[in-house]
């Protein structure tokens, strides 16, 4: 892949993670100052309702629909993991 494309892809990924962290912190969970993209979402209180609401927000804000069959506790456990999952679903081919 061209280095320019890689830089753009990395920028997109970083900005997606930042935006996703904001959505989780403000719209889904009540979090403390130490909460970051590696904090465990389930330990922070994520439950079925919050998961569903987060999936809807991801669709609305990023245009990525995450199929329930692909969701696991491992790939949904932090904002960073979720962002990687979104990247893999959004990638062409």
């Amino acid at each position, binding site marked *: 892949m061209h280095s320019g494309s890689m830089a753009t892809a990395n920028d997109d990924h970083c900005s997606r993670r930042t935006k996703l962290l904001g959505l989780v912190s403000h719209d889904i969970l009540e979090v403390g100052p130490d909460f970051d993209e590696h904090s465990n979402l389930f330990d922070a209180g994520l439950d079925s*309702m919050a998961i569903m609401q987060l999936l809807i927000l991801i669709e609305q804000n990023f245009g990525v629909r995450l199929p*329930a069959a692909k969701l696991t506790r491992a790939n949904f456990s932090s904002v960073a993991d979720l962002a990687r999952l979104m990247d893999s679903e959004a990638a062409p081919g």
Partner: protein
Amino acid sequence: MSLFFGKELARLTGADCFVLALDRMMHRHGQHGLIGQTHVRMNSVPDIARVEESARGLAAAHPLLDAVVRRNPFTLRAAWHEGRRTERHLPVNLWFEKGACVPDGRRATEIASEDVWVDHVLNQQLGSRNGLRNLHIDLVLLRGGGSLLVLTWTHLLFDGKGAEFLVDALVNPPPPGSAAALPVPPAVPPRVTLRERIRIATPVVERFFGLAADRYVSLAGPHPRPGRLRFRMLTFDVGSTERIQARMEAAVGPLFRIGYFLACALRAHRQAFLARGSDPAHYVVSLPVQIRKKGLGTVPFQNCVTILFFAMARASLDSMAAAAKLAQAQFEEMTRGRLDRSFTQVLELLRRLPSAVYLAFVRRQFGGEITAFFHSFTGEFSAGLGDVFGARVTNAYHIPSVSAPPGSGLFFGLFNGRLNVTFSWREGSATREEADLVLARVREDLLGGDPTDFQPEEGTGCAPT
């Protein structure tokens, strides 16, 4: 209104008013109101003096624990008003099973057994015993050396998650001299025009009209009736709970437990109907879901729930997998359609309706029934609850009361990797034999395979008659 009622402390929300309507119906029909009981089971006896001191702190800090709900006759707005007592005293009532050791210098009342005592306390009017109007605290010393901390509370005060916050506040009191840990919200709804409120509320109202076409029944039937509250519990150990989780993941994936447990509750209730020689064509089940933002301890003193209404036809209950998938699909559909927000708005719109009128609407719409049965999954009980003043916590769960109608409820919760299942019912709405059938179906559906795999760990919670 403080002229007549005492100082107003907090307004009731829409969800609180829904509970108020149920509570009033229950009082009118000899059911003692909608209460909940929270049990914290320990492997030894906690430092009783510290429990008492913490209880005193809670009583001093939270006037809502002794407050009264009154409806303004002019505005019809319901609110908590300060109780008449100038000093709020919240004792920790001490009991001991015969053979249990009572610490020196302590006075405790002997009881025949935990089961008999719990049955007795569950069927007493809250506020009639030694405690505050809306909360009692008891500590039962068990003959095996363990103990049971019991909080009995009115559902008007909060929901199950709120009760867990109160347990947290009891076992983790703030340092002396610091502010009370539990905020009381203003309960003022956001400023939204009536037109906008109606627009938001419309989707769930449309769903109600659809649901009303499919007549459903509860074990109690549509007419309110008195009856003692009974309950039975199952507690699955860590290994069994892991097996349950694995079976759930195979059916619906690892993340959405809500639909799986609902499917289990539906099939279990169907078992009770089949034993009566009937097999209802439809079920409509109300499922409360938290609308508190998850995470840090937030507001306890409210019913912070909305309700999703699931509709299942008999044919979809023939297998756990099919029922769970359909429940999950409805959950997704209702969440996408923002029916959670829609029902919250309906509750806000109905907030000022007198309780009798409130329920008259429900009963007219659904032929007297409220829901086929009550059901909830409260998730992990107060993550981090490890010990109570020196005594290690071995289990914690709720015993919800149920009104009749519907007469029964199945409730699921987790504590430290163990699944607790409570079946509550009203005498006259269901029988002990039906309770056995319900729980046998729960065991088989959750664990599969040989039902003898399961070894019950807890008592039945039912006093012998």
